[in-house]
C-alpha cells in the first residue's frame, strides 16, 4: 500500500510529461485536423458531457458490449466445465477456440454483418472476443485445482455445493478474474470497432465514424478518451465486485 501511495506523484509527473509533449506536438503541427491539442480535446469533451445524446450513446454501446461480455462469460464457464467433464468436448472445442482467438476482428465483423443487424453486431463481437479468453482462464483455474483436496472431498463425501465453495471456486476465481481483466479490454476495443464498421445509429462507434468523415479530430480524441475511461471504469467496478464475491464465497485471501 505504501509503495502505491509513493508512486502517485511519479505517475502524475509521467502523465504531465506526455500531455505537455502532446501539446507541444499539436502546436508544432499547427493544424487541428491532423493533431488536435489536449486542451482542444478536453474542451470538446466538456461540451459533449452535458448533452443527452452523449449519455444515450454511452448507454447504447456500454449495454451491448457488456451484454456480449456477460453472455461470453456464462458460455465460456459452461464450455470449460463441459471440457473438464468430457474429453470429447475438450477435443471438439480446442480447435474452435484456437480459430476464434486467431481470426482478425475485422473478418468477424464483416462476416457477422451478414448474419446480424448492425445494432446487435457489438454484442456478437464482444461475445466472440470474450469466449476464448475466459474459456482458457476457467480451464487454467480448473486445472490448477488441488487434487489432494479433491481426494479429501471424495473421502469425506462432501456435497457438490461445498466442494464448489471450498475447493473449485478458490482455484478458478483468481484465474477467471485475470481473464475478465483481459476480456473486458478486448470487448471494448473490438465492440467499438464493430460499431465503426456496422454503424448502428446512436452508438459510440457511429460518433467516431462521424468525427472521421467531418474531420472533427477534437471529437475523435474526446470519444476515444471516453472509450478508454469507460473500459477502465467497468474493469475496476467489475473486478471489485468479483473480488467481493470471491471473499464472500471462498473466505479471506491467503497471501
Amino acid at each position, binding site marked *: 500500500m505504501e509503495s502505491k501511495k509513493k508512486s502517485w506523484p511519479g505517475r502524475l509527473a509521467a502523465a504531465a510529461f506526455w500531455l505537455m509533449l502532446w501539446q507541444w506536438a499539436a502546436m508544432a503541427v499547427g493544424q487541428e485536423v491532423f493533431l488536435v491539442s489536449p486542451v482542444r480535446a478536453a474542451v470538446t469533451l466538456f461540451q459533449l458531457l452535458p448533452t443527452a445524446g452523449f449519455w444515450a450513446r454511452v448507454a447504447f454501446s456500454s449495454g451491448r458490449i457488456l451484454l456480449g461480455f456477460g453472455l461470453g462469460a456464462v458460455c465460456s464457464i459452461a464450455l470449460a466445465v463441459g471440457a473438464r467433464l468430457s474429453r470429447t468436448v475438450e477435443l471438439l472445442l480446442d480447435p474452435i477456440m484456437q480459430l476464434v482467438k486467431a481470426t482478425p476482428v475485422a473478418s468477424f465483423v464483416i462476416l457477422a454483418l451478414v448474419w446480424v443487424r448492425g445494432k446487435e453486431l457489438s454484442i456478437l463481437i464482444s461475445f466472440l472476443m470474450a469466449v476464448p479468453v475466459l474459456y482458457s482462464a476457467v480451464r487454467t483455474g480448473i486445472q490448477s485445482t488441488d487434487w489432494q483436496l479433491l481426494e*479429501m472431498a471424495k473421502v*469425506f463425501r462432501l456435497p457438490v455445493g461445498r466442494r464448489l465453495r471450498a475447493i473449485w471456486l478458490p482455484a478458478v476465481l483468481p484465474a477467471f478474474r485475470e481473464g475478465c481483466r483481459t476480456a473486458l479490454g478486448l470487448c471494448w476495443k473490438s465492440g467499438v470497432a464493430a460499431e465503426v464498421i456496422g454503424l448502428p445509429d446512436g452508438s459510440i462507434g457511429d460518433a467516431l465514424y462521424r468525427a472521421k468523415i467531418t474531420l472533427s479530430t477534437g471529437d475523435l480524441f474526446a470519444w476515444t478518451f471516453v472509450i478508454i475511461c469507460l473500459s477502465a471504469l467497468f474493469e475496476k467496478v467489475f473486478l471489485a465486485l468479483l473480488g467481493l464475491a470471491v471473499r464472500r464465497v471462498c*473466505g479471506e485471501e*491467503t497471501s
Partner: protein
Amino acid sequence: MTLQVNHLTKRFGEHLLFENLTFSAAKPAVLWAPSGWGKTTLLRILLGLEKADGGTVTGVGRAAAVFQEDRLCPRLSAVENVLLVLPDGKARRREVEADFALLGMTGEALTLPAARLSGGQKRRAALLRAVWARADTRLLDEPFTGLDPDAMEKAAALLNRRCAGAPVLLATHDRAAIEALGWPVLHLDQMQR
C-alpha cells in the same frame, strides 16, 4: 462394523510392496511396519483412492481420514475446515472450538485461514476433522506429526474418548504415541500369509 482385509497384494511395477496381507479390525488399532513398507499405500487402498493388485477389503463403510498431508482448504479457518465435513456444521461450532481448546488452540489461531497456521496447528485441524466427521471407519496416517509431546498426549486422549469401540487404524512410528494411545498394535510385516 468390522474392517476386513483379505489377501491384499500391491506392487508398483516390478516392486512388490506387500503380498497376501490379511487382518481385521473392529476397534481402534495401531498399524506398525518398517519405514517404506507401504502403510500409506495400504491406507489409500482402504480409502478407495488406490487399487490393489489382489485381495479384498470389506467393512470400511463411510470413511474419515487424516492424510499424510494436512489437506486443509487454505482459505478456511481451522474450525471451518472441520465444520465443512459436518452436515450440521454451523450448529457444532462451539463444540468443535472446545475440542480445539483441548488441543491448545484458541483465539486468533481459530480465525486465521488454514494457510497461515503452523504445521502443528494444521495437524490438529486435520485430526479433529477426522474425529468429528460422520464415519464408520477412521484411517489416520501419522496424525501426530508436528505435535509436541504434551499436545500429542492430549490428542491421544481425545481419540480414546471419541473413537473407542469403532474401527480406527492409526499408522505411526512414534513409540510415545503408541504408548499414549494404549491400542493394540498390528505388525503389518508379520501379517502377510
